[in-house]
């Protein structure tokens, strides 16, 4: 839909062939991107002085990506401004009914639309990467190699890992952060709506470029796993370039989303929304965005260096030509450790946001929770060498990083105190969102404690790069963040879609996912201790039974995710009954608005007069004062 149409608030028109084939839309952007990419590839190939053709491929990807984004329309406003014209005012479509489904396939300046775009795209990527995990576990049913020969196995591992990293980076921040943060703070929009949409469109672009490495054959898909370690990544075949460019684009998307959310949270809070009244989920967004804005640019530069090594034979990472393979590892993990905290901090925010609602009690230790999340965020910059203890780092660094890593578990442990304190003497209602929060806390406890094992250097000597690490990070990322995603989906689905997720299907989802998740990943600690190397399609014969158990339970865990998907689809399509506007009786601002939330969120910005966690107190004032009257009648409190 063109910017003019948005600005005038007109309803979308019927399909027009001229607009479809010549206008700025997803179809034309894809076509132009591919053509620009092919032309740039050809030019690069002519200029390439080496035998490997990477210069052309990299140029093709970069120019193709630029062509796609420009044709989508992201350059329109900057070009207008360069020409001295006023910017198109940021006016969203006024009437929710006139949005139409086409808005989800273009640039949208409505943060709620962008949130849904993120959610759908990233959940699709989650299922694709999860399917690949099933393929990996199929191979590991056989100790001496399964249906995929060695080269395909490492390709599968790399595709699964890298795509899941994309998912984990963006799912909570991109979907729920973008959708709810402006509403939670009483704002009508994000600080930079166009940038928000730009950050979204980098995601299918990055994932698409990543998967284009399959065009170079299965042996050509990148063989390095998601770390993309040089010099193997410099040595690899052409499919490596897709991984490099795709990962860099996703990093840039995360960085832009970070800057956007941070600015929104700092400058667009409603009157009265002091820092001590900010919802804990919003605080988690602040904590995470320091990482999200600052760490991915390191990755983008690092991948540019790998690209240069590949394309023009610079020698950043080749020791015999003056470079250092070790440099890659240091730079990568300087990004890589903050990256994993980008995954878990929003999950903390989701968990602590949901818990008080169902405990009908204020969040215990609100300030401590904030301090914990900010502490984790700050300290995560100082621990990265714990990923490379055995790489030959200077001996004096090991005690420092070991101690720093162990110290970071102190602010991390605060969330458990908050949770226990909140449910102590509470009026606890065991609904699905809070059940998933408890499951997330259980899983993250195991993940966190096994992280302490790995932080101890002597233990790390045996456990590094074994299946113990695989178990640890699946417990923290899947057990922590993805279970928080389940909780968030059950909690916020009624507000986004106007339907409740089915309770009975949800209970099946809960028990199957919790049980099979633990039965899949717990034995991996044993496998790692028993000498099973990660990223290897072969293992010792005596671990055969253990791997069969893990694989079968892994398949069942995969099925439990399909139950979740089925629940979302069933509830959206088949359920006629509209959800109550505030089924959980939450005090948070988004639940004080009707469903669907109006395009501008608030007709008039409310004034915040109390915090969102005053549950269980009959004398507590409402959260906000609404000029012109509250959007909804005040509910009879049932506590």
């Amino acid at each position, binding site marked *: 839909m063109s910017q003019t149409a948005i600005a005038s608030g007109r309803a979308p028109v019927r399909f027009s062939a001229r607009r479809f084939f010549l206008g700025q839309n997803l179809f034309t952007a894809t076509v132009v991107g591919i053509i620009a990419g092919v032309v740039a590839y050809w030019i690069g190939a002519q200029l390439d002085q080496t*035998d490997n053709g990477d210069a052309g491929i990299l140029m093709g990807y970069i120019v193709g990506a630029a062509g796609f984004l420009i044709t989508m329309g992201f350059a329109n406003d900057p070009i207008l401004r360069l020409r001295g014209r006023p910017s198109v005012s940021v006016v969203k479509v006024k009437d929710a009914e006139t949005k139409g489904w086409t808005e989800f396939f273009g640039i949208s300046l409505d943060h709620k639309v962008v949130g849904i775009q993120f959610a759908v795209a990233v959940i699709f990527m989650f299922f694709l990467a999860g399917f690949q995990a099933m*393929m990996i576990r199929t191979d590991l049913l056989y100790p001496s190699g399964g249906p995929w*020969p*060695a*080269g395909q196995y490492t390709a599968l591992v790399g595709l699964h890992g890298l795509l899941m990293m994309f998912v984990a980076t963006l799912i909570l921040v991109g979907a729920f952060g973008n959708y709810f943060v402006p509403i939670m703070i009483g704002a009508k929009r994000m600080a930079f709506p166009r940038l928000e949409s730009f950050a979204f469109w980098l995601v299918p672009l990055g994932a698409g470029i990543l998967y284009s490495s399959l065009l170079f054959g299965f042996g050509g898909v990148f063989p390095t796993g998601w770390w993309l370690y040089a*010099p193997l990544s410099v040595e690899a*075949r052409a499919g490596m370039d897709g991984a490099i460019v795709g990962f860099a684009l996703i990093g840039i998307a995360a960085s832009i989303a970070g800057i956007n959310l941070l600015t929104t949270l700092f400058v667009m809070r409603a009157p009265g929304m002091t820092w001590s009244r900010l919802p804990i989920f919003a605080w988690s967004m602040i904590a995470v965005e320091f990482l999200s804005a600052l760490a991915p640019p390191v990755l983008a530069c690092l991948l540019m260096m790998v690209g240069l090594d590949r394309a023009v034979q610079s020698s950043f990472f080749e020791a015999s030509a003056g470079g250092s393979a070790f440099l890659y590892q240091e730079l990568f993990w300087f990004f890589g450790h903050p990256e994993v905290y980008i995954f878990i901090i929003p999950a903390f925010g989701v968990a602590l946001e949901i818990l008080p609602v169902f405990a009908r009690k204020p969040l215990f230790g609100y300030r401590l929770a904030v301090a914990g999340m900010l502490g984790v965020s700050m300290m995560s910059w100082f621990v990265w060498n714990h990923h490379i203890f055995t790489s030959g780092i200077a001996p004096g660094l090991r005690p420092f990083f070991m101690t720093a890593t162990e110290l970071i578990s102190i602010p991390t442990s605060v969330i458990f105190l908050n949770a226990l304190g909140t449910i102590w003497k509470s009026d606890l209602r065991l609904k699905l969102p809070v059940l998933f929060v408890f499951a997330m806390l259980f899983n993250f406890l195991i993940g966190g404690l096994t992280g302490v094992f790995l932080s101890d250097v002597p233990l790390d000597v045996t456990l590094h790069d074994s299946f113990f690490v695989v178990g640890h990070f699946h417990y923290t990322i899947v057990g922590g963040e993805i279970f928080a995603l389940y909780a968030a989906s059950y909690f916020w689905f009624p507000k986004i879609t106007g339907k409740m997720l089915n309770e009975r299907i949800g209970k099946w989802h809960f028990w199957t996912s919790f049980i099979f998740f633990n039965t899949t990943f717990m034995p991996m600690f044993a496998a790692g201790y028993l000498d099973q190397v990660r990223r290897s399609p072969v293992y010792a014969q005596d671990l055969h039974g253990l791997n069969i158990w893990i694989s079968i339970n892994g398949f069942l865990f995969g099925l439990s995710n399909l139950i979740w998907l089925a629940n979302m*689809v069933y509830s959206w*399509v088949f359920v006629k009954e509209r959800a109550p506007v505030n089924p959980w009786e939450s005090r948070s601002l988004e639940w004080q608005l009707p469903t669907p939330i109006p395009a501008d969120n608030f007709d008039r910005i409310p004034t915040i007069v109390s915090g969102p966690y005053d549950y269980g107190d009959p004398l507590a004032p409402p959260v906000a004062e609404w000029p012109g009257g509250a959007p909804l009648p005040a509910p009879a409190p049932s506590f």
Partner: protein
Amino acid sequence: MSSGRKLAIVLGSFLIGAICLAAYVVIWLSYNPETITPPSSVNSSGQLTTHLEIATVGSIDFGVHPSWVAYLIRQHGKWVSSTVWELPAHSLIKVTLFEYDTQTGLRNPFMSMVRGTVGDDMTVNGKTVRYMNANYPAHTFSVPQMGINVPLEGIPQSTYPGTISGNPHGEHETITFSFRTYDPETVRWQCFVPCAAGYLFGNGGPMQTVGYMDGYLKIV
């Protein structure tokens, strides 16, 4: 949007998604390198012997990567591009290898020593050899899991390297050696001469692709 329309979209998406996933798996499975079983015979004392005829060429001249170095195996008189070979267990494997490629030299000169074959040696054009000048090998046939390493002497650099378009021809060295198989297992084999032009260390491309410079021995 009407509920019927939603249902249609959802079912349609699932159907398309399922088809795509199935196609995805089929494509992954379809790339399974062809397995060749060389001929075997049993001699009068009951010893099972398998005869393996292999050639190595500087460029294979057909297929997806015509310029890549490759191993080929003779089956029914024809040269086949396959590096996955099925061998019987508890057998003596007699290998005759025609080396059509030029000398490249080893990255690690340790690989210039013959190990793990019967007698720990091989013959090159009829002459028994145990150690070789580290600059002479064009390729190696190495099975680290069985302790086997055979450096394959290449033709001198000044000679035009052999190529095939279905048939190897030109100058070549004839190398023979034997090794034994034991219990059934699947082991991998590789070449230790980094000969992939255009890749760092010479170890990319064909050096890391089953069907060219790497393969499996399926001992059954």
